[in-house]
């Protein structure tokens, strides 16, 4: 692997960039691997990397039906934060944040993790109560998050409209300074390159049709578009398609897949210094390094695998953004796209052993999977290598849906009165 640096870039610039090698080879599947990971997104590629690096397991294949990083990794609005309410969530996402912090150096690939701060807007008394609860909980957990008055929020993000006459006036905000964004494609590519350098095979354009189990019920491999591949351990990290893959192993999941839409504006010079989220009006916004306003919306109401989504939701999302940031109505939408997010009943992920020997699952990240990428990858690798969950992902079991020990971030933010 050619090491990336300013020096190597300069050297290559002088010889017309002739010396760069492929960042990962175009692998064909072998007959057998120690571990097969289904899904070559950031989570799956990252898990392969950590299996190789931290657990010495290098006979690993990451298999994807399309191009690597082509699912939600390459379709999200790249928000990274860890200011979650429940201890279990905050610790999990903060673990990811710790890894994000050093990821460019770790992978020798600039993933452009930008700690520009994520600000969540409170629009009413209920929001204030809920965000204060987050702030205090985070503080005692050692997770960065603080409360801002609306004036402080405006100072931090000048385009913000804090007029009390707004339909949803801003009354304050919670700010996690350590949070921010990263370059989504670079995360997939950086992990792919680093994993491939340690011997991992990345097999693209090869659909996994079924997980095959032996007579004793344990996993024996996967049937793919390129034939059967033997493996005693299979980890499914297939986001929106998890239900379909797991079904082939005879397991039905507490998951539903919904379209999630996002859009970018035309690029402009820096105007928006941070990430702002408003759960009340359902919109999220930041500005990419390229200058585009990156805007995310909530999920469409119906389950779908179409990666399409409808116009009404986008209209609402844009309207919500313009309500909070009225200077943007004359900006133009450049591109709108959709992803498929897999959602659990309590809106928290499932990361651990499946009730089949040799089968592991990482899913249910809903709209928040990107921020978890290094953490989820790291913990999935641990769980696969040790055949038991790490304490950080131990609460995120499938079993919680029968015992009732839910980690309900969504319910905790539930609006009532």
């Amino acid at each position, binding site marked *: 692997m050619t090491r990336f640096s300013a020096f190597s870039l300069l050297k290559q610039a002088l010889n017309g960039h002739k010396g760069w090698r492929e960042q990962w080879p175009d692998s064909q599947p072998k007959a057998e691997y120690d571990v097969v990971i289904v899904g070559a997104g950031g989570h799956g590629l990252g898990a392969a990397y950590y299996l190789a690096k931290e657990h010495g397991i290098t006979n690993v294949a990451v298999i994807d039906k399309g191009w690597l990083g082509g699912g939600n990794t390459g379709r999200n609005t790249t928000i990274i934060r860890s200011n979650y309410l429940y201890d279990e969530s905050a610790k999990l996402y903060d673990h990811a944040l710790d890894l994000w912090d050093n990821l460019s150096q770790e992978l020798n690939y600039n993933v452009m993790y930008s700690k520009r701060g994520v600000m969540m807007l409170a629009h009413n008394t209920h929001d204030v109560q809920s965000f204060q609860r987050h702030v205090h909980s985070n503080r005692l957990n050692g997770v960065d998050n603080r409360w801002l008055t609306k004036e402080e929020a405006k100072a931090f993000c000048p385009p913000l409209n804090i007029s009390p006459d707004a339909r949803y006036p801003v009354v304050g905000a919670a700010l996690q300074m350590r949070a921010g964004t990263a370059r989504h494609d670079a995360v997939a590519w950086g992990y792919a390159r680093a994993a491939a350098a340690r011997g991992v095979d990345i097999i693209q354009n090869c659909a996994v049709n079924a997980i095959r189990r032996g007579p004793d019920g344990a996993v024996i491999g996967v049937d793919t578009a390129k034939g059967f591949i033997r493996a005693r351990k299979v980890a499914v990290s297939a986001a929106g398609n998890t239900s379909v893959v797991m079904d082939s192993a005879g397991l039905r999941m507490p998951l539903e897949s919904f379209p999630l839409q996002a859009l970018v504006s035309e690029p402009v010079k820096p105007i928006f210094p941070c990430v702002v989220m408003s759960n009340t009006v359902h919109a999220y916004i930041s500005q990419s390094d390229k200058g585009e306003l990156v805007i995310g919306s909530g999920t469409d109401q119906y*389950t779908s695998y179409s990666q399409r989504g409808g116009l009404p939701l986008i209209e609402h999302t844009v309207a919500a953004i313009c309500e909070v940031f009225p200077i943007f109505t004359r900006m133009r939408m450049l591109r709108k796209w959709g992803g498929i997010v897999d959602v659990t009943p309590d809106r928290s992920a499932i990361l651990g052993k499946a009730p089949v020997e040799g089968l592991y699952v990482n899913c249910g990240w809903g709209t928040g999977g990107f921020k978890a990428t290094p953490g989820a990858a790291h913990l999935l690798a641990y769980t696969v290598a040790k055949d038991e969950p790490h304490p950080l992902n131990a609460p995120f079991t499938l079993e919680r849906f029968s015992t009732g020990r839910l980690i309900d971030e969504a319910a905790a933010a539930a609006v009532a009165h």
Partner: protein
Amino acid sequence: MLLIHCPYCEDTLPELEFTYAGEAHIARPADPSALSDEEWRDYLFIRTNARGPHYERWRHVGCGRFFNALRDTVSDRFLMTYKAGLPRPPLPQETVE
């Protein structure tokens, strides 16, 4: 924006007039107390999440009625809608991959 046929109003109307109501043909058990925790979990949380034809429920806000639909989740196209309480119709052959 999807177009949806309400089998009660017998009218095809835009999605904005409807709300999605989850997977269909998951009947509430007659005697929940007789169920194990796992069986009860299956009723509460386990979903088919089909990629392709999917039996699901919608509510027409206009008339207030819940009804069932068979919709292809890959194309988002409705294959049929039918009244609540009717048995699950078979999958149309041409949509089975």
